[in-house]
């Protein structure tokens, strides 16, 4: 049960730390690095609140061990805003009332950054399927879907070739 030293890049910054093997990546981000934007709802993979981006893929950070992140790159919700300037996705959530209490929001945002990268011009059905793994107790999802659509439109104006991904 001896501690391991890991080296992880989180939001562009390299962190080195000693962790117990049983420490989840979510607890490492929150408690060791103080990045409390990643939320923990269920701690067993069901709610999606803890979603982060690991080497470009949206994953549940409660279902990973911190030791597994050694040498990898992680993005959390803290990576989105640029100082006081919100990311277009965050802007869209605010604009469309895509959040109420905000507990689930970091997970939705990190899921959507990956989904919209791979599907820049999604249909509503595709958005709903992509969001099915994230639970929200407040909004009823309608405004989250609206925010995702609006964000897709905004992001399309920012990217040079918003073509439909075949996947």
């Amino acid at each position: 049960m001896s501690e391991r030293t890991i080296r992880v890049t989180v939001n562009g910054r390299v962190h080195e730390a000693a962790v117990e093997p049983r420490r989840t990546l979510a607890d490492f981000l929150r408690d060791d690095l103080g990045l409390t934007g990643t939320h923990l709802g269920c701690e067993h993979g069901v709610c999606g609140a803890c979603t982060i981006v690991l080497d470009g893929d949206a994953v549940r950070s409660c279902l990973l061990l911190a030791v597994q992140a050694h040498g990898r790159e992680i993005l959390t919700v803290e990576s989105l805003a640029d100082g006081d300037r919100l990311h277009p996705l965050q802007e869209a959530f605010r604009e469309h009332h895509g959040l109420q209490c905000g507990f689930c929001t970091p997970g939705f945002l990190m899921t959507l950054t990956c989904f919209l990268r791979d599907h820049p011009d999604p249909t509503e059905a595709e958005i709903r399927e992509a969001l099915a793994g994230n639970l929200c107790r407040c909004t009823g999802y309608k405004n989250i879907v609206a925010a995702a659509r609006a964000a897709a439109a905004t992001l399309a104006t920012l990217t040079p070739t918003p073509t439909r991904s075949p996947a």
Partner: protein
Amino acid sequence: MKPPPFDYEAPTSVEEALALLGRHGEQAKVLAGGQSLMPMLSFRLVRPRIVVDVNDIPALAGIREVDGTLAIGAMTRQRAVEQSALVRRRCPLLADAMPQIGHFQIRNRGTIGGSLAHADPAAELPAVVAALGGRLVVRGPGGERQLAPEEFFVSYLTTTLEPGELLVEVRLPVAPPSTGTAFVEVSRRHGDFALVGVAASVTLDEAGACVGAAVALTGVGPTPVVAAEAAAVLVGGRPDARALEEAGRRAAAAVRPDSDLHASAEYRTHVAGVLTRRALARAVERAQGGGEAVTP
């Protein structure tokens, strides 16, 4: 909701992994995608002394075609299988089942071998392997064994994998020409485990007569159920509405599901019949379209 303490090793070769598993026997747990093991650790349903993480073994991941079979390494991510053009062309049933497993975030980590080794009675992949008569390749201290699905799946969350053994690969026969397949399921919400799921495959000859069919169901018993009597109805004739109807009836007769929190046994039996008919109808339609090799 925190995992109990354990030691951790991340070997980089199968030999090293087998040595560790051999040394620690029942005290060790293999960590693949962690999408089932991590919740079990957090609930403290399992308390291994050591976790052997096999994510750093490149030899365990990859999809190859060899001698009429598709060989898929145990650590191939479910998402990679879903997006593989080779899988879509050669084993369309597997391609059809993949997006129905959990959510894309789960499939980004979850592996094909992890799902089969976990053997959830409502999982999609065991039914796919059972329908196609695939082989599970297992390595252990005594060397390699290749198991048929009925030799591998024993009961709820139970397989014939021994402590010290590793599932290394699954082999699935490549679909013959003019084969159509379909995986259909009913679940409470998209991404939930199936209440009932059906894997179906139909092969036609040039005249449109059925020369081969297979059906397997998930969610209706402790292990995947191969409904050979249901598939047999179609073989030798034209797969018309009457034959499909009869196949559905026989599938419903072949299953003995339990009632649980999610659905009663009566409901599951009824749905098994309806979904078998639908899955076979879709497979026939796709086979008539010349098989799925041409789609997307």
